């Protein structure tokens, strides 16, 4: 009936193949950037600088992973930046104000994220508020709550000595002293691996793609779309909780004024990685590469002593180029 034939493929190769093109493009760009910067400056390819890039990727990378889930459903979450801060503040309350053990602080951060996501998801799914508006509201609510709870002052984790190890310690470095990769980076890769597994292999992941592809069709198939959407926002929120832990650990404090702007950096990484803002397509690996590209750019331009103001301009241009390249590809393939 058609001129195309569908060669049987394994499930793995199919998951990899989904959206391959843009990821190959992004990956190639990443390699070109790495080569370009290392030719331009001998300091760039130092192990310590590579580790610094990875460390700088960790928070934005985890946030990008979180928001990828929501974006694949065809939604958006503008609240992840201030949600991250809110999770850090709650952890501060649990560990520093209440003096509870470290594990409870970790649980508190993830639970706070999940709860916030649950709220956003409920606004979107049950109250039918467009995701852009619902999460814009959540962004302000969470920012305000962080300031109120902390009394606008940073909460330090000086009484919980193990806390800074979450991000800055290096389990890998203890085994392989030559490779002191910080735990924050390790956590990023673990979170990304888990999220990729959830997206590719679980019911929740399947409904991410299905909702983004044709929500009405999913609903008419008898699936409780509202409940799944809420679950996806909650899952995304719990990953934001991990980002909250990472940033609080790196700063050894919960900074209540921080957070705004992180959501846009994360969304930018997702877009550079080839995830469609209209939903239905996207991968975690792409978002990870997108986050790395942004970190490499910032770092490389700094190594070349380009003013920080210009770094921001370049990042903006990269986003527009990435989306344009993706749209050109779609146009050709359709």
């Amino acid at each position: 009936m058609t001129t195309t034939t569908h060669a049987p493929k394994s499930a793995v190769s199919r998951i990899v193949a989904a959206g391959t093109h843009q990821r190959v493009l992004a990956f190639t760009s990443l390699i070109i950037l790495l080569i370009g910067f290392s030719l331009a400056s001998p300091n760039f390819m130092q192990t310590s600088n590579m580790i610094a890039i990875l460390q700088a990727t960790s928070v934005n990378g985890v946030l990008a992973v979180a928001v990828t889930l929501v974006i694949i459903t065809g939604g958006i979450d503008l609240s992840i930046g201030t949600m991250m801060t809110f999770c850090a503040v709650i952890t501060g309350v649990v560990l520093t104000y209440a003096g509870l053990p470290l594990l409870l602080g970790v649980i508190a951060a993830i639970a706070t994220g999940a709860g916030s996501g649950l709220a956003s998801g409920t606004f979107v799914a049950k109250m039918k508020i467009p995701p852009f508006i619902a999460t814009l509201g959540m962004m302000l609510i969470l920012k305000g709550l962080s300031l109120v709870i902390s009394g606008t002052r940073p909460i330090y984790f000086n009484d919980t000595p193990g806390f800074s190890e979450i991000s800055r310690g290096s389990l890998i470095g203890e085994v392989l002293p030559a490779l002191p990769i910080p735990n924050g980076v390790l956590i990023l890769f673990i979170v990304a691996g888990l999220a990729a597994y959830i997206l590719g292999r679980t019911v929740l992941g399947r409904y991410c793609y299905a909702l983004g592809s044709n929500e009405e069709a999913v609903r008419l198939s008898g699936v409780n779309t509202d409940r799944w959407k809420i679950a996806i926002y909650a899952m995304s929120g719990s990953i934001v909780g991990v980002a909250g832990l990472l940033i609080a650990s790196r700063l050894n404090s919960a900074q209540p004024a921080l957070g705004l702007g992180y959501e846009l950096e994360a969304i930018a990484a997702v877009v550079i990685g080839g995830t469609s803002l209209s939903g239905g397509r996207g991968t975690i690996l792409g978002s990870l590469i997108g986050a790395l590209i942004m970190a490499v750019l910032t770092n490389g331009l700094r190594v070349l002593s380009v003013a920080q103001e210009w770094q921001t301009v370049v990042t903006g241009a990269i986003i527009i180029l990435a989306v344009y390249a993706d749209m050109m590809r779609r146009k050709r393939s359709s």
Partner: protein
Amino acid sequence: MTYLVEMKGIEKHFPGVHALKSVQFDLMPGEVHALMGENGAGKSTLMKIMSGIYARDGGEMRVDGTTVYLDGPRAAQDLGIGIIHQELSLMNDLTAAQNVLIGREPRLRFGRLDEAELNRQTTEIFDALKLNIDPRASVGSLTIARQQLIEIAKALSYRPRVLIMDEPTAALNDAEIAELFAVIARLRADGVGIVYISHKMDEIKRIADRVTVMRDGAYIDTLDVAETPLSTIITLMVGREVTQSTPEIPDTSQAPVALQVRGLTRGRDVRNVSFALRRGEILGFAGLMGAGRTEVARIIFGADPRDAGEIDVGGAPVDIRTPNDAVRVGIGYLSEDRKHFGLATDMTVRANIAMASLERFTGSTGVLDEAAMKRVAQDHIAQLGIRTPSDMQAVRLLSGGNQQKVVMAKWLLRDCDILIFDEPTRGIDVGAKAEIYRLLQDLAAQGRAIIVISSELPEVMRLSHRIAVMCEGRLTGILPGGPATTQEQIMELATRRDTALAPAGD
């Protein structure tokens, strides 16, 4: 014998519309019960109530003699009521198997998916239906006909006791229809009750046991198909004796060519389409869903880019790249989706009529001349018989037929000599249809060149001076209009596939 499903006194209101007026319907096990009526008669609404998509405002629905209230499609599925929708409702980014078993994915522990089992189960379902579709194929990459078959496979995979089919054959060719009917025969033998909505009279005669006719949201009658002549059913549907009016076909063979298209191509959607349209002529475009008719119109209008092909207007080649280019050479396109593409529904009749010709009402200062716009709008309201309290009425408050006339007025004001009408009477009631037909004939008589794309064969046959038929992106033939051409001839062309392109065993 107890009824499988029994509906009585069903009421449904939508804002401003009394969609169902005390409608009744019943279904016995092992029968095919056809539901017929014109567009807008309420068939789909009734079936959406039966399948739990809409809640009823009044009346009673019994399944196996027990009164039920359905709070969603899931509740209907649990009672064994399945529906195949008229519009495809598939997820294009997912595979065939993922679509068929959506909501019922085989799971391992912790919410993990068993992809191998998913594909195995789907293969079984496809095999049982003798469908040769790779369960791992991405649905978006398949043809419309294949997508329709997946939709049917999906509904059957629920093993329903009641299966509602809303125009299931709209995109299928004869061989596929025969296959579908074989499946229906097997289901009937198993005691499944089938509700069959179709406009195709021959299909009703072939497979239906009983037929219920609806008109204007009301129940008309239920009849035994074998004992009822088709003309009786048609009369009940339209509420009056239908005289098959044949169009008067003017001789336009000497008229100048208004539009000439050569080798129009765009991917798989449109392949090497060539035709000529003369002034004063109405050229009808017939074909099944996805045949590429709208795509041809959109390319001519510059709404979509083309891979190849040339367009001449009035004998001179033109380079149309955007709708703006098309309008400048006098081509107007009236989209099938008026609400999305044809009208700013919250704005007034006057504003909509002037929309495409604003520079005509603009002085050197850029201020709009409201008085001139009012005059012109009122002229067109009178000329086209648009029923509106005033030219300042918001367009969304007009009926479908009058909205269509507003779109026509907009393009007439723009001095378009070539008008492309895509499904001009979709969602318009019978009386207004006749008026739209008369307007189209008047426009042609004034020397305008007109293309009419329609999925309703009687409409194409009633209007067209010549009939172009498409199948899978190719123009498979142009037939003369009038009584010389039969519905069968058109359908033959509309299903004439390019066998060279089909893989073996397909």
